[in-house]
C-alpha cells in the first residue's frame, strides 16, 4: 500500500513538472471546458427545477390569477390553497392511509431484510448465493409487471382488507434491494467478530442482536429511508390492489384530484406539493448517504 501511494505521488509530481508548459498554453482550453461544463449544468438544472418551481408558483395563486397568466409569478404569498387542502377530510384520509401502509411496511421490510441478509452472508455459506439470487430475481422482473396475477393471488389468500394487501405487497416490493444491501454490508463485517462472540457464549440470535444489529445502523437507516421514499410515492400497485375508495393511499387519491377540484389547478398544485414534502425532506437529510449507497451497491455488481 505504502509503496504504491508513494509511486502515485511520484507520478503526480513528475506530471506537475513535465506538463507545466503544455498546460499553461492550454489554459484557454481549460477555461473553455469549465465554461461548457457549467453551461450544461445550468441548462440541465433549469429543466429539472423549472417544472417544480412553476408548481410552487401556481400553488400560491388563486384560480383566476392562474388562468390569466399561468407562467407569471404570483402577485403575493397566499396560502389559501394549502389551507384548503389541509382542511379537506378526504385528503387527510389518504394521508392517514399512506402513513399506516408505509409506517408498517418500512419496519417490516427493514427488519426482515437485515435479518435475512445477515444469515445469507454469514450462516449459509455458499448456498447463500442461491438464496440471494432468488431475491434478486425480483429486480429483473418488477412486481408491477405481474400486478394482475398478484391481485388474484392476494384475493385467493383471503386478504380482504385493502390496506393489509398493500402493506404485504409493499414489504416485498423493496425486499430484493434491501436484502442485497444488508448482505453486502454483513459480508464486509469480519467473520472473527461473530466467532469471538460465539466463544464468549452468545447464541446465534444473541450475536445478531448484541453485535451485528448495532453495527448495522447505517445500512438499516438507508434501507428505511430509501424504502420510505419509494413506497410513499408508489402508485400503480396501490391502484390495482385497493378496491375500496376509503382505503386509497395518497398517490392514488392525488390522481383523483383533478376530477374533484375540477380544473382548479392551483389547488391541485398545493396538494401535489404537500404530498412531496416528506420525501423531499428525507432526501435533503440523507442526500450524501443515498448517493454513497449507489456507489457501493452498483460498483460492486
Amino acid at each position, binding site marked *: 500500500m505504502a509503496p504504491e501511494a508513494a509511486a*502515485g505521488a511520484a*507520478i503526480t509530481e513528475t*506530471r506537475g513538472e513535465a506538463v507545466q508548459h503544455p498546460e499553461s498554453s492550454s489554459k484557454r482550453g481549460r477555461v473553455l471546458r469549465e465554461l461548457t*461544463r457549467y453551461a*450544461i*449544468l445550468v441548462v*440541465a438544472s433549469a429543466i*429539472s*427545477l423549472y*417544472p417544480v418551481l*412553476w408548481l410552487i408558483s401556481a400553488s400560491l395563486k388563486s384560480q383566476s390569477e392562474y388562468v390569466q397568466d*399561468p*407562467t407569471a409569478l404570483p402577485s403575493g404569498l397566499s396560502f389559501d390553497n394549502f389551507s384548503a387542502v389541509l382542511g379537506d377530510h378526504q385528503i387527510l384520509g389518504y394521508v392517514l392511509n399512506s402513513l399506516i401502509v408505509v409506517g408498517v411496511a418500512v419496519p417490516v421490510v427493514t*427488519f426482515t431484510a437485515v*435479518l*435475512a441478509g445477515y*444469515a445469507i452472508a454469514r*450462516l*449459509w455459506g455458499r448456498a447463500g448465493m442461491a438464496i440471494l439470487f432468488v431475491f434478486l430475481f425480483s429486480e*429483473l422482473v*418488477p*412486481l*408491477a*409487471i*405481474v*400486478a*394482475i*396475477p*398478484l391481485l388474484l*393471488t392476494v384475493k385467493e389468500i383471503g386478504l380482504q382488507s385493502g390496506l393489509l394487501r398493500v402493506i*404485504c*405487497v409493499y414489504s*416485498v416490493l423493496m*425486499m430484493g434491494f434491501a436484502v442485497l444491501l444488508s448482505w453486502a454490508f454483513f459480508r464486509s463485517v469480519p467473520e472473527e467478530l461473530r466467532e469471538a462472540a*460465539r466463544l*464468549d*457464549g452468545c447464541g*446465534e440470535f444473541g450475536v*445478531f442482536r448484541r453485535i451485528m444489529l448495532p453495527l448495522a445502523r447505517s445500512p438499516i437507516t438507508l434501507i428505511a429511508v430509501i424504502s420510505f421514499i419509494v413506497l410513499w410515492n408508489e*402508485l*400503480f400497485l396501490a391502484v390495482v390492489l385497493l378496491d375500496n375508495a376509503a382505503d386509497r393511499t*395518497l*398517490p392514488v387519491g392525488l*390522481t383523483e384530484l*383533478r376530477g374533484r377540484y375540477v380544473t382548479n*389547478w392551483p389547488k*391541485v*398544485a398545493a396538494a*401535489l406539493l404537500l*404530498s*412531496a414534502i416528506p*420525501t*423531499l425532506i428525507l*432526501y*435533503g437529510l440523507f442526500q450524501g448517504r443515498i*448517493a454513497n449507497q*449507489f*456507489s457501493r451497491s*452498483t*460498483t460492486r455488481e
Partner: protein
Amino acid sequence: MAAASQTLSVERGGRRRLRLPRSVTVAKYAMVMPALSLFLVFYVTPVIAGVVISLFRWNGLESPSYIGLGNYERLFEDPVFVDNVRVTLVVVGVSLAVILPLALLLAVCLSGKGRLLPLFRWILFVPVVMPLAAVALLWSEIFNPLNGLANELLGHLGIAPVAWLGDPSTAIWALILVSIWGFVGLHIVIQLSALSAIPTELKEAARLETPSTMKVFRHVVLPLLRGSLTVSAVLTITGTFVYFTSLSFVMTKGGPVHATEVLGLRAYLEGFAALDFGLASAITTVTMLITITLVGGALLIGARTRVEY
C-alpha cells in the same frame, strides 16, 4: 487470573463447539424465513400464478376453464397487441438511447471539485424523489393544450399550439420526455459514483501518454464504467416498464388510440376493465419474457465488452 479466565473460555469454547452446529442450523433457517416466506407468497406465487392462469379462460365469476395456448393465439392475432409490444420496445429503446449518454455527460460535468457542484447534484436529483402522481399531473398540466406551459413556450417561438397528449403522434414522445425527466437523475448518481471511484492517479498517468482529454475518457475512463453502465441499462429497462405504465395510466390511460398503451397498461386494462384474467395473465407472461430477454441481453453485452487500453 488471566490463566483462569483463559481456561474458562477454553472450556466454554469446547462446550459451545458441540452445540454450535445445531444452533446455527436453527438460526440460519429462522433468520431467512420471515423475508423468504413473504417473498415466496407475494412475489414468487404471482409470477407462477400468472403463467398458470394464462392457460385458462377466466373472468373471475365462473370457474376457470383450461384452453391451452388459446389466450396467446388471441394475443398474437390482435393487431393492437402487436402495437402494444411495439410501443413498449420504442419506449425502452429511446429511454436507453437518451438516458445513458445524457446521464454520463451530466455525471462527467458534475464530477470533480467545485463549490457549486453539490448544489447542482442536489437539483438534478429532485425530480427522482418527486411522487410519480405529482410528476404525472404536473406534466399533464404543462401539456394542457389550452394554456399549458409547453404551448406557451412554443408560442414564444412562433410555433402553432400542439395537442400533445391528445395527438397519437406526439403523446408517446411527451410521455417519454416526462419519464426521462423523472428518471435521469438516478442514473446521474449511479454514473457519478462510479466516476468518483476511479483513482485519479490512473487518469493522470494516462494523461502523460496523451494530451487529449477525449482519448483519456474513451480509453481509460469509459471501460471502467462498464459495470455502472450495465446497471444503468438494467434499471432503465425494468424501470421504464414500471414507470411508464403508471405515467400512461395517469396521463393518457393508454390513449389516444392506443398510442401510449404499453404492455403493463394493456394487462391492467384487460384484467380490470374487461375482467379477462386469462388474457391479462398471458400479457403479463409475455412481458416477463421480454423483460428477461432485454435484461439478459444488457447483462451479456455488459459482460462481453472487454476492457481495452
